[in-house]
């Protein structure tokens, strides 16, 4: 069976100054549907570059990347945008919500670019997703009226709008307090249990503990790949 994500000898070289920088130095990696993966590593280890390429925000210098059976390593900016729209959902450290915009409109946004649903269906699905992330009654609230944890929930609902096979999260709890972090990670765990594939970058061990698979990057290489069959450790979150 084909994997959802297949990396084959991916390299990303930045030609900065005289010495080229090998941000990714030959990474091969498979991720299957339904996995909950945490990518870890010190800063400068290449984990952000890896996530950017995984998220189709950047293209590798060489190597092959198959996403959902499709080669995406060498695509134009337009094609990558369309792939992100249909196949990927993003959750960011700083939420990246539009200012002065209601939660419901934030969640609807990906479908505005996709144009798949009618106006009524779009609104219905957005409300459903807000309820799903526990913000049923707050559709009209703007980011300024929401707490950090609530803003991140809006961002998660938005990431799920176009029903993508993969959800990418870049330090999703980096700007949140412990209590909000636990709530967000619980939500991720629930989504993972529903079969959504989640790839998350984090440098916090207790956050990574929620994931079932840990990838550790160092100097542009994948140095560890642990699969844990046990349920996410409740104690780890403290």
């Amino acid at each position, binding site marked *: 069976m084909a994997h959802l994500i297949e990396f084959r000898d991916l390299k990303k070289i930045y030609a900065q100054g005289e010495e080229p920088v090998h941000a990714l130095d030959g990474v091969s990696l498979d991720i299957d549907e339904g996995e909950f993966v945490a990518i870890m590593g010190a800063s400068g280890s290449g984990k952000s570059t890896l996530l950017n390429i995984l998220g189709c*925000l950047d293209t590798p210098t060489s190597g092959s990347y198959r996403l959902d059976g499709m080669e995406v390593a060498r695509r134009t900016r*337009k094609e990558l945008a369309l792939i992100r729209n*249909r196949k990927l959902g993003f959750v*960011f450290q700083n939420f990246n919500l539009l*200012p*002065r*915009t209601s939660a419901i409109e934030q969640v609807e*946004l990906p479908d505005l670019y996709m144009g798949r649903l009618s106006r009524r269906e779009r609104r219905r699905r957005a409300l459903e997703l807000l309820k799903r992330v526990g913000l049923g009654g707050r559709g009209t609230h703007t980011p300024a009226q929401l707490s950090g944890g609530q803003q991140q929930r809006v961002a998660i609902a938005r990431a799920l709008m176009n029903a993508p096979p993969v959800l990418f999260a870049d330090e999703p709890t980096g700007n949140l307090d412990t209590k909000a972090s636990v709530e967000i990670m619980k939500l991720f765990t629930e989504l993972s249990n529903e079969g959504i594939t989640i790839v998350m970058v984090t440098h916090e061990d207790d956050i990574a503990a929620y994931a079932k698979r840990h990838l550790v990057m160092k100097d542009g290489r994948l140095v560890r790949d642990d699969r844990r069959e046990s349920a996410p450790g409740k104690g780890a979150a403290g």
Partner: protein
Amino acid sequence: MNFVMIFKVAILAILRNKTRALLTCLGIIVGIAAVIAVLAIGKGASTMMLNEISTMGNNLVMVFPDSNRRGQVRSGMGSGQTMTADDAEAIKRELGHLVRYVSPAVNVSSQLVYQNKNWSCRVSGVSCDMPEIRNWQIGEGRFFTEDEERSYARVCVIGTTVQNNLFDGEDPVGRTLRIGAMPFKIIGVLRSKGANGWGQDQDDTVMAPYTTVGRVLTRSKFRSINMMNLSLHDMSDLDEAKREVTALLRQRHKLPDYQDDDFETRDTTEIMSTMGSVSSLMTVLLTAVAAISLLVGGIGIMNIMLVSVTERIREIGLRMAIGATPFMILSQFIIEAVVLSTVGGALGVGLGVVVANVIGEVNHWPIVIEFSSALYSFLFSAFVGMFFGFYPAYRASKLNPIDCLRYE
């Protein structure tokens, strides 16, 4: 790609920051308002000038007999006796398809006497069509009729200068005025026209039927006249009308081919063309002012849009991350600029109309607001939005989503 959606995205983005939207519009609002106001005032001024010119007459052609020759001594224009009232009547009869009104003019300078007052001025013998030809309005009473013209009636119409000098607040209509030795009944007073372009008082005049004047004042045997005023149906027939009139008069005067015309025609096209060049110069000037205003407004839009692109760099990154293609980003920002500039254009048209009217009211200037100038300004503002919105939008679309998302 769904354009309606992009449009919706752009509108939502504008509504999100109304202060910024207003500031972006401001340049265009002021620019368009300036254009509308300047054009309204300029158009009003040129309309006023045209009105002034039109007091001279409608589609006017004047025919003068050549000067009188006695040996080598020549008298002035109109002194010849070769042209007669019959010529005028022949033109009216035979060239009616080109010439709408004909009025011969028999001018005589005469002493006017009313009771114990007297005054001297030019008495013009004209036809009943004179008010139509020279745009004379009747202030009180009436002008004489064709019947009175044919029956050599001793009636006359006086100008306001004559009225002021002979009648001390008394109503002149119905009084009897002595012109030279002959009594004339005053049947009307002409509405004042003021001085003409050469400073001559047009109201210092008395008009009577040319028939009567010719018979009882000049006593000319040959019914000779000083000139003819012709009013054409249409100024575009000018050349043809002049040719036909010339041919007819040559034939009536039995001039052999080798002999020059014994008359001369003149028209107002020269004056018109001078005024035309003044008014086109003014148009060029106003257009330049308008163009500069709009250019400044457009640059304002570009500035704010550029600032806005930088300010919204994270938003752009997010939009790209969730699937906006570069073209969609480009479209969004161009649509934003066009919507802002057209809304600004519409507001500017409104403001311009108000400003023009206020200025006109305060200075007592005529204001002419043309629908076409409002429409063109509005359309041009949309174009300005597109033109000046393109560069910021292009910059936005070329941004790298990763850099945008990391931008602090």
